[in-house]
């Protein structure tokens, strides 16, 4: 990052904290519903020192990892078959867009009925929230493959599974990355949303505990943690993966 950009960012965040502190000092709202930055910081420190924060982060990330892996594997499979087998596209394909429009938390009641208040239930919500973005982007990617790539591969003897793993998937990868990026964001929302409803460990649970105890500092602290994890995962994993793939594929 260029120093000037970094300076801008630092100034922006310092500005937010200052405005926040100023609002708090003005005593417009009672402290109970509008905590100061320091109180939120204390809440974070408290959670960190007794370990509940890290346990919550670990639990949520673990669920995210499992759910997102299933969503990516399933989404790629479904997307490839939709793009290559007309019948699959005409049947399953016609409902995928509709399923994609269901917010992930809307799967929670079903998950509770089917899986109870378990990890499997949270993971189910995560998968349901993320799988269809991966599916749609994979489908688009495979449909947009230069037909000469497929013809050349078949000409050299590739068929069936080899054609899928050695040509279709890598050729569609730049599109699939967009699906992963969308899918991960949906998965993260799914995890937190389900944890809120399931009240069963994780960051969403800690957020809900904050509400139940009327501890607004903890609510805001958990929201900050959820957001920061979002920024970190996007920047460290998906942005890097995207940059790497785009340059490798000669697309930028």
């Amino acid at each position, binding site marked *: 990052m260029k120093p000037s950009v970094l300076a801008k960012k630092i100034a922006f965040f310092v500005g937010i904290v200052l405005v926040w502190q100023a609002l708090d000092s003005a005593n417009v709202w009672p402290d109970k519903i509008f905590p100061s930055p320091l109180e939120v910081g204390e809440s974070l420190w408290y959670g960190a020192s007794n370990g509940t924060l890290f346990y919550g982060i670990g639990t949520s990330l673990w669920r995210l990892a499992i759910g997102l892996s299933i969503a990516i594997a399933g989404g790629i499979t479904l997307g490839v078959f939709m793009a290559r087998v007309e019948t699959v596209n005409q049947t399953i394909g016609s409902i995928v867009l509709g399923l994609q429009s269901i917010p992930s938390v809307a799967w929670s009641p079903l998950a509770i009925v089917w899986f109870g208040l378990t990890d499997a239930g949270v993971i189910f919500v995560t998968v349901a929230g993320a799988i269809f973005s991966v599916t749609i982007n994979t489908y688009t990617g495979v449909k947009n493959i*230069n037909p*000469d*790539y497929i*013809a*050349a*591969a*078949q*000409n*050299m*003897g*590739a068929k069936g599974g*080899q054609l899928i793993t*050695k*040509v279709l998937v*890598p*050729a569609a*990868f730049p599109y699939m990355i967009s699906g992963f990026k969308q899918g991960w964001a949906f998965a993260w929302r799914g995890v937190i949303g389900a944890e809120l409803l399931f009240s069963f460990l994780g960051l969403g649970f800690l957020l809900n505990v904050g509400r139940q105890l009327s501890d607004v500092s903890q609510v805001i602290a958990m929201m900050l943690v959820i957001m920061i994890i979002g920024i970190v995962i996007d920047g460290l994993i998906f942005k890097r993966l995207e940059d790497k793939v785009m340059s*490798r*594929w*000669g697309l930028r």
Partner: protein
Amino acid sequence: MAKLEAKNIVKYFDHDGQQLRALGGINLVVEEGDFICLVGPSGCGKSTFLRIVAGLQKPEEGQILLDNRPIVSTGPDRILVFQEGALFPWLKVRDNVEFGLKIAGIPESERHEISKRYLDMMDLTKFANSYTYQLSTGMRQRVAIARALVMDPEVLLMDEPFAALDAQTRDTLLVEMQMIWQKTKKTIVFVTHSVSEATVLGNKVAIFTHRPSTIKKIVNIENKRPRLSEDDSLMKYQQEILAELRPEVKLKEDAE
């Protein structure tokens, strides 16, 4: 002996919902070791014919015989070099060249041995670890040719592989292509729109008519190699081919 034989190949194009008879019964015999160039007015279906030979498209009528056996599908015994190369951008040059060998399940050490030979032949050794976007168009076509040669096909099919190259690069590759042919003794079917390119490369040049196309004439060229595009001795063949081609191009233009 006939290596490759096309028997009455008929193919329709779908043109604005209308069925257009593109190939009107192509009959062609390619002898073992021939370097045959196909020329014809644009849109006459010569590239389509090549894809039919490769087994990538099916004709409405007729059949292709390879060593007297009808072909049923595509396969590595007839490798096609595409106009734009169709190299895989996610693979390094070496992995592109070894793609077909890997598909065939050939072990890594053997693959490297084979690819090394053809990377050397095509002057690509120092680019073996590059990605294709890092190469010039000419270099990419060399990779495409190497990728085809490693498969040791019975027939090498080339679809205007030099069409997008600048004149100097094309001249170099025209000479190299002749050396490759002499060295490997491959049977080559080469589609081009350039009459000059056809006379430099081919020991036979087959002229397609306008749609529905048939083969109008085959010109034999026995000049010694390596030939260059500026060779005076090729002039008379070029004139002969152009004389056959001109009325076909006129028919095409009248039809539009």
